[in-house]
C-alpha cells in the first residue's frame, strides 16, 4: 500500500456549516483542515467570462445561461461587484429559497473531500440539533448531504454539531460537559455525559442574525458586517462607531438568548443523570471569536442560578475547526 492509498482509506470529519464547510483529516497523527466558504454568486454566461475564470482557476461551473462561482472565490467576486453572496444553507439546513442550493453544496463538498478512493470509507458529517419542538427540515438536509457523500463512495454518518464539539474539546473530562458551537445559522448545544449526548438543541440566533440585524439598522450590506466582525470587531461596549455599536447590541441579544435557552432547557428536563462533579463548558465556532465574547457569556450565564454546577467556561483553542475535528474523532472510533 502506498502513502496515497493509505490516505484514501482514512476516515474524514466534515463540518457542514451555514457559512463554511470544513473537512478534517488525520495524517501522521496530526489534524489537517481544508475549508471553503459555503456561498456562491451567479454571473451571466459569456465565453469571455468563462475563459477568464478558467485562466484564473476560479472555482466555477456553467449552469444554463449562468456561471456559478462558489466557495472562497465567491467572496472575492462579491466584494468586487459590491453584491451579497448567495447562501446554499439557511439556519443550519439547506436553504429552501435557493434553487441552486443542493448543486452548489455538491460541488463544494466534492471539491473538499473528493471521491472516497476505497469502498466504505468512513465520514462523519455535522448536522444541527432541533431548535424546539419542530424539525425544520433537518431530516431532508441530513438525507441530502448523506446522499452526496454516498454518491462519492463514502459510508456517511451524521453527528450533531454540539456533540462533535464535545468530542473535539472534552477529552480531559472524559467527554462530559456542555459543547456549544456558535456558527452562522445556529448555536448548537450538547450536554454530554461520558461521551453520550443527554440533551441536544439549537438556538436559531447566531452570526447571520447579528449581521442581518446590524446591517438593517446601519444601512450596510450583511456581507460587510461579517467582514467587519471577523477582522476588527471586539465586544467592548458602546462607542462612537455606529457599526460596532449595532454589532454589540445584537451580540448581546444572541448571548442572552443562548444562555437563557440553555438554562431553561436544562431546568425543564425532567431529571438529569446524577452527576457528582461540575461540568465544563466549551464554546466554539466563528461567532465566539471576537474579543470580549467569553466575558459577556460568563456574565450572562451567572446572571441567574444555573441548574447544574459549571466547572469553567472556555473558548476552543481552534474554534473554526472544532466541529470538523470532533466529527473526525467519531469517524476514527
Amino acid at each position: 500500500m502506498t502513502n496515497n492509498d493509505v490516505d484514501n482509506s482514512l476516515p474524514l470529519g466534515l463540518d457542514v456549516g451555514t457559512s463554511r464547510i470544513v473537512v478534517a483529516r488525520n495524517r501522521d497523527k496530526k489534524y489537517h483542515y481544508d475549508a471553503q466558504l459555503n456561498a456562491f454568486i451567479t454571473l451571466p454566461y459569456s465565453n469571455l467570462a468563462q475563459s477568464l475564470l478558467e485562466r484564473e482557476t476560479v472555482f466555477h461551473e456553467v449552469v444554463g445561461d449562468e456561471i456559478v462561482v462558489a466557495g472562497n472565490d465567491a467572496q472575492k467576486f462579491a466584494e468586487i461587484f459590491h453584491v451579497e453572496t448567495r447562501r446554499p444553507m439557511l439556519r443550519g439546513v439547506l436553504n429552501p429559497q435557493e434553487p441552486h442550493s443542493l448543486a452548489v453544496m455538491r460541488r463544494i463538498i466534492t471539491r473538499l473531500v473528493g471521491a472516497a478512493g476505497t469502498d466504505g470509507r468512513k465520514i462523519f458529517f455535522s448536522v444541527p440539533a432541533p431548535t424546539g419542538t419542530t424539525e425544520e427540515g433537518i431530516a431532508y438536509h441530513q438525507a441530502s448531504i448523506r446522499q452526496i457523500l454516498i454518491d462519492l463512495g463514502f459510508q456517511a454518518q451524521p453527528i450533531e454539531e454540539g456533540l462533535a464539539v464535545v468530542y473535539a474539546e472534552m477529552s480531559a473530562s472524559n467527554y462530559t460537559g456542555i459543547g456549544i458551537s456558535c456558527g452562522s445559522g445556529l448555536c448548537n448545544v450538547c450536554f454530554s455525559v461520558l461521551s453520550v449526548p443527554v440533551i441536544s438543541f439549537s438556538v436559531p440566533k447566531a452570526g447571520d442574525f447579528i449581521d442581518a440585524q446590524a446591517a438593517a439598522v446601519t444601512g450596510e450590506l450583511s456581507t460587510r458586517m461579517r467582514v467587519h466582525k471577523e477582522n476588527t470587531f471586539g465586544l467592548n461596549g458602546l462607542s462612537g462607531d455606529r457599526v460596532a455599536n449595532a454589532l454589540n447590541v445584537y451580540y448581546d441579544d444572541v448571548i442572552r438568548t443562548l444562555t437563557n435557552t440553555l438554562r431553561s432547557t436544562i431546568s425543564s428536563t425532567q431529571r438529569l443523570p446524577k452527576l457528582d462533579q461540575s461540568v465544563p463548558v466549551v464554546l466554539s465556532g466563528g461567532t465566539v471569536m471576537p474579543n470580549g465574547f467569553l466575558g459577556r457569556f460568563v456574565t450572562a450565564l451567572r446572571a441567574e442560578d444555573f441548574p447544574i454546577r459549571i466547572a469553567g467556561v472556555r473558548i476552543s483553542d481552534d474554534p473554526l475547526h472544532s466541529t470538523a475535528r470532533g466529527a473526525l474523532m467519531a469517524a476514527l472510533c
Partner: protein
Amino acid sequence: MRPVIQLSDGLSVPQVVKQASRMADQVDRLRYLRGAVTVGPGRPRGIHQWLDGMAVWIIAAAATAVGFALVLWRIS
C-alpha cells in the same frame, strides 16, 4: 422518566472513569467510552416504581406467612 447511565456488564461509573482516564490517546478514550456507556430512558416513575420498590417486602412478607403457616401446621 429519568435518564440513566447504563454501563457494560459488571462495570460501575467510577471504574469506567478510571479505565478511560488511563488512556492517553483521545480516540482510544472516546472509543472505549462509546462502547462502555449508554444513556437509557430509565424506569417509569409513579406506581410502577413504587411497586418495584415494594416487591421485595411483599415477597418477604409472603415467605414469612408461609413459614408461620408451616410451623402452626406442624404444631397442630
